[in-house]
């Protein structure tokens, strides 16, 4: 593992990569003139991978990390964006160029069971790349046939990944999961690639076997000078093996930076929450309560406007006119969000009230309705002008006018986070979050300069928020002084919860 040298050119450079899938796009749908809906699996990803390093791409299922890996190798056609490998545009390659690229960039897949053809021997599997690329180009001088040469090479590779050469004629089903994964690694290495995408290579394996494979990958990287793009959802594995990390959420990179920075002083609230959620295997973990992110990841068919994370973010920025505790603001936002997504109707609340009511003489009482809603969305402690607005909206809602109620809330409580999509700012350790970007995008600075400026201001966070201590104090002493003032309110109250 080596740190990227300053000024070094990236081996792989991804810019604005997008991959949309279209649903309702068959002949039949077109005949019926149905509009295709797009699923935005990858929605504008920028990455650089420097020679010899391991870049981790981490995120929850459905964040688009595997699609990113496959799209940048052109195993799937990208919808938009550019990928440059060693200066050449991968998206424009064809014929021989593409074949040469395939030789230089390999991939290892997650599933050790479906990634090996069950009808081929492991020797054939490992040697397939050699055969495809017509290797060896000339008959070996020692009188072996090309076929023998390939077999010998497959034997060498099997030995190198920790299997024994005399297993060359066995079929994949005769191997355990870990051994199959070794075969998959040998296949990827057969063509002497410079760059390997490791797509969750250990997540299907048991921990003891996982450790074997991680060690093997590290050794191979050192021995052959490989560059890795390591896709994973397991943060501890990423911490262990990666030099730099990119955190993805709903098709976008929300934070990127050197591994230690990300893990010790995460900037983006999502990264923080992710780190906080992981259960540590140590005694101190016992009984630790985490404040989990509320709700589920929204559907990539209809991602939230602005910052994709705002629907779950514990630190949503309030508009200048509002200043209430974060959880109350979250309650208001949740209410609005549910109304806007047609998640529920006033009628269903009435029905619930009716079913809870014991007697027959149920009357639709607006006061009870509002009471129930306040309880459901934690709005009881509101006061002042905020309360008036919310009461107003609830009144409208109780009368069955959901859209109007949502509109009322939107007027008063729209967050900057939903209006503008944040961009990655902050130089080497960058986050796509308005908490860190407010200042800059107003001034319309070049991100490069902003990064330097912030680097100058920032002091490393004294206490990593992810130590195993049993506490709820999440307060991340923001690495950059100016922005912290903005975020302080919300973060502070969050800690008190």
């Amino acid at each position, binding site marked *: 593992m080596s740190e990227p040298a300053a000024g070094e050119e990236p081996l792989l450079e991804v810019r604005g990569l997008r991959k949309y899938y279209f649903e309702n796009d068959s002949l039949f749908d077109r005949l019926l003139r149905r509009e295709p809906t797009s699923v935005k699996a990858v929605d504008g990803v920028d990455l650089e991978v420097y020679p010899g390093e391991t870049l981790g791409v981490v995120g929850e299922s459905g964040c688009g990390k595997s699609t990113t890996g496959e799209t940048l190798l052109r195993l799937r056609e990208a919808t938009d964006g550019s990928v440059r490998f060693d200066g050449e545009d991968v998206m424009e390659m064809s014929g021989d160029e593409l074949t040469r690229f395939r030789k230089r960039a390999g*991939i290892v897949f997650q599933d050790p069971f479906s990634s090996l053809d069950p009808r081929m021997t492991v020797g054939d599997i490992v040697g397939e790349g050699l055969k*495809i690329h017509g290797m060896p180009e000339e008959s070996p001088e020692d009188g072996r046939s090309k076929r023998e040469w390939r077999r010998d090479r497959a034997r060498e590779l099997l030995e190198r990944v920790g299997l024994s050469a005399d297993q060359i004629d066995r079929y994949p089903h005769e191997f355990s999961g870990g051994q199959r994964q070794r075969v998959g690694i040998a296949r990827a290495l057969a063509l002497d690639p410079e760059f390997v995408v490791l797509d969750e290579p250990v997540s299907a394996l048991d921990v003891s076997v996982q450790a074997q494979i991680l060690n093997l990958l590290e050794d191979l990287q050192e021995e052959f000078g490989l560059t890795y793009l390591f896709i994973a959802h397991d943060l501890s594995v990423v911490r262990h093996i990666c030099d730099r990390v990119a955190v993805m959420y709903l098709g976008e990179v929300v934070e990127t930076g050197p591994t230690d920075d990300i893990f010790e002083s995460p900037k983006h609230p999502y990264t923080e929450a992710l780190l906080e959620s992981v259960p540590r295997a140590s005694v101190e973990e016992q009984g630790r309560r985490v404040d989990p992110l509320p709700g589920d990841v929204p559907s990539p068919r209809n991602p939230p406007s602005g910052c994709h994370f705002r629907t779950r973010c514990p630190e949503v920025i309030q508009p200048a006119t509002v200043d209430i505790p974060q959880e109350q603001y979250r309650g208001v936002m949740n209410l609005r969000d549910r109304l806007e997504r047609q998640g529920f109707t006033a009628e269903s609340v009435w029905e619930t009230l009716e079913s809870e009511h014991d007697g027959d003489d149920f009357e639709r009482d607006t006061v009870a309705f509002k009471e129930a809603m306040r309880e459901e969305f934690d709005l009881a402690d509101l006061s002042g002008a905020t309360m008036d607005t919310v009461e107003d909206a609830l009144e409208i809602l109780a009368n069955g006018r959901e859209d109007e109620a949502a509109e009322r809330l939107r007027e008063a409580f729209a967050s900057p986070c939903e209006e503008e999509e944040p961009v990655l700012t902050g130089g080497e350790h960058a986050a796509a979050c308005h908490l860190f970007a407010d200042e800059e995008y107003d001034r319309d600075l070049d991100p490069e300069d902003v990064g330097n400026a912030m680097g100058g201001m920032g002091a490393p966070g004294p206490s990593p928020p992810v130590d195993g201590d049993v506490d709820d104090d999440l307060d991340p002493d923001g690495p950059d002084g100016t922005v912290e003032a903005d975020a302080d309110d919300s973060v502070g109250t969050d800690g008190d919860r």
Partner: protein
Amino acid sequence: MKIGPISISPRTIRNLRKEFRSSGLARIGVVLVVVIVLAAAFAPMIAPHNPRTQNLDRAQLPPLGFTDTEQRTSTEMVNGSVQTVTENVTVNATAQHPLGTNSLGQDILSRAIYGARTSLLVGLFGTVLAALLGVTVGLTAGYYRGRIDDALMRTADVSLAFPSLVLAIALIGLFSRFQADVAIAITDPLVTTGVAGSFRDAVGLPTPMPETFVLPTVVILVVGFVNWVWFARIARGEALSVREEEYVKAARALGASDVRIVFRHVLPNSITPILVLATIQVAAIILLESALSFLGFSGTTLSWGFDIAQGRDYLSSSWWIATVPGIAIVLSVIGINLVGDWLRDALDPGIEGEGGM
């Protein structure tokens, strides 16, 4: 073991053997099929008579174990006037024609044995043709998806919409407009080399046997073309699922061409259901061929369907003429279907590799 794209692992063989041992039906199927195949292959040696030799003296003899009463009418001069005399004559079966003879005095057993040749050859060649056509189309559609898939599979759906018999007859009509011969005669090597003749002399069977055998080529083309759709559908379904397997992605990442991926990865991993379908299709095509020759579209007279058509007129008097080839059809179809079931059961559970958990 490896046969083309089909690799047979010891595990498969074990499954086949186990299923064979545990299932009585599988055994019955295999025995039936083996008997029919042997009979068809060695027809010139084992058929008791030349199936084409007519002998009107011995017409409509019943099978062994049955007697038949036949009304013979003769005109006689009695007392100066012509009288029609009807007498009931008992016709006894003879060991020379164990299954009796037809209205032309041809030996029914021999015709049934030769009919098996026609049925099996049409079944096999027709299936191979249908499979080649259908699998190519299906794999292409399933692998490329999108518009290619739409176009190919809609074509398949359209041809499915026609009843197969009607489609077959229409196609035969089409073919016969362009080509005079609906069948070709192939020489029978067993006869021309004299192997069959010397064998028959040795066991005391009458010679000579027919030197040529008629292969109804148009029927083969037509049944192949009528049945390709089934293969296309199965192959497409398999290709759709196999193309999503990670090993296909892995091959693409290594730079493999589409042709290589389809033939090295997709086809071998789709072959099991295709094989099972092919077995069952042989039976379906045998039925279709019988129907066509029953209706007189075959181009050969040595066919079970043709014999049934011949016997239909004599059902009330000589039931065996139509019944024997009918039973032959039923037995062969049942036998092949049982073999198909056996293959399906043995190859189905956990295609190799799934057991590694």
